[in-house]
């Protein structure tokens, strides 16, 4: 009421909708689903992103062109459109028949969540989109390593694969921890778009609370605070990691300050 008065709103706040049964439980379900979706999508993004970072910097022309096309496509189209693409278009590529039908109507209850195509499409969409961005970040990290290091490593007898494995990837990854933290935060926030293809994450559940209680402001405030809490936790974790893995003397300006 106090807040409503300050904002000049003619609106009765009822915050208890956020923990009353069953709404509180719905929100917790949403948090769980957001975390599962985002973490799994992050694994996909990291694996694909590292591969892209390598291919974009390696001296193999055809793979490099393929990786470039991939990055430009997925980085330069809206995630929302990509989610619709994964959800509505991708299964239609399969030949009409039992396999396509099985994909479309997948519905398996697992202890963690209901495994259905809504979840898989959200996972693929979020993972692939983020992988293009992660790939670019890793490419930048690798390219920021002085060329002489590669030359020195090669002339010491290492093969190109070994150079990537033992020099470029470990050093490059450590350099790009700060921008990677941003990507990691983004994946949690971007996961909210999965509501559009019916995946029951936080945004979905807040809309659900709203549609049952008509207390939209409370529900949206709750969603905002939940995302903020998740993001701040990750930010704290990542900045710890940044300090721990900083390369002394390279990006030590912020990192060594105790």
């Amino acid at each position: 009421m106090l807040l409503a008065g300050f904002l000049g709103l003619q609106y009765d706040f009822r915050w208890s909708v956020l923990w009353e049964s069953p709404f509180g439980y719905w929100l917790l379900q949403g948090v769980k689903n957001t975390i599962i979706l985002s973490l799994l999508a992050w694994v996909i993004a990291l694996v694909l992103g590292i591969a892209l970072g390598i291919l974009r910097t390696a001296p193999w022309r055809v793979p490099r062109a393929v990786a470039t096309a991939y990055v430009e496509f997925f980085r330069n189209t809206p995630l929302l459109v990509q989610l619709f693409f994964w959800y509505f278009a991708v299964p239609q590529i399969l030949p009409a028949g039992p396999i396509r039908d099985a994909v479309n109507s997948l519905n398996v209850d697992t202890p963690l969540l209901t495994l259905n195509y809504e979840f898989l499409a959200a996972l693929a969409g979020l993972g692939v989109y983020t992988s293009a961005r992660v790939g670019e970040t890793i490419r930048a990290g690798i390219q920021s390593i002085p060329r002489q290091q590669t030359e020195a490593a090669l002339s010491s007898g290492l093969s190109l694969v070994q150079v990537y494995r033992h020099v470029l990837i470990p050093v490059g990854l450590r350099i790009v921890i700060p921008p990677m933290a941003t990507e990691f935060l983004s994946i949690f926030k971007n996961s909210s778009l999965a509501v559009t293809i019916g995946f029951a994450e936080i945004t979905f559940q807040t809309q659900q609370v709203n549609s049952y209680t008509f207390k939209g402001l409370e529900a949206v405030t709750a969603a905002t605070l939940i995302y903020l809490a998740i993001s701040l936790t990750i930010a704290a974790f990542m900045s710890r990691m940044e300090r721990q893995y900083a390369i002394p003397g390279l990006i030590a300006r912020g990192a060594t300050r105790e």
Partner: protein
Amino acid sequence: MKKSLGVLLALLFVTTAVAPALAETVLEKINRTGTLTAGTRTASIPFAFINEKNEWIGFSIDFLEAVQARLEKKLGKPIKLDKKEVTPATRIPLVANRTIDVECGSTTYTRGRDETVDFSINFFFTGSQLLVKKGSGVKSLADVAGKRVGAAQGTTNEKAVRAQQPRADLVTFQDHAAGFLALEQGKIVAYVTDGILLAGLAAKTKNPKDYEVVGDLFTKDPYSCIVPENDSKWRDFVSHTLMELIDNGKYFEMYDKWFGEKGVVQYPMSAQVRNFMIMQSMPE
């Protein structure tokens, strides 16, 4: 820290100072701004939808234009009709916080919603049914236990499925177009919304004969416009517009335009509904 606290306090002070100005009635606001901000839908055929020519039209939009015309007469100046897209999930909050002055689309008047917003008199009657592919074997809500069923999030239909058929695997969509596409692709076996909207969705496809609307009405869905709570002058204005249209017969012409033989969806008005509409109109 101290400084930012000061800024915050100053902001709060400013917002408190302007607060009384915001407590104007909808009619006062429309008079001041010269704009009627109306929410409506984009895929509720034939109430409010976007056609092949990219025009945003429909039965509910014709009604909004009638409200606009009556406003112009009352206020004696041109009023702009500013249409905003709403979804089932956004329409009530947007009216409740007065972002939009009125929402006319395909919204069911429920007592629960009436706690938060107000409603005009009814302008249409329908109820929940299921849209299925012909030969699916689904004939009623009882047949979808353990099957994937679609509905638009935040609709009365969605809640009815959860309450009346909890064993169905409910998949929700943000609009009817997406839900219909999912039905077409076999992601769901049935799509649930008001019977009239299902008929509209099927009518718009390439092969309307491949689909059928099945089942008894398992909810009662009288449509009304939503207006903000506690502004009875404005609610009256919207309701009286509809009463005038019923009295002078324009309502029935509008109905015929959208639901008649040449309409987008053929859905002739029953004698019962016609009587109800006439009874709803109070004497002058």
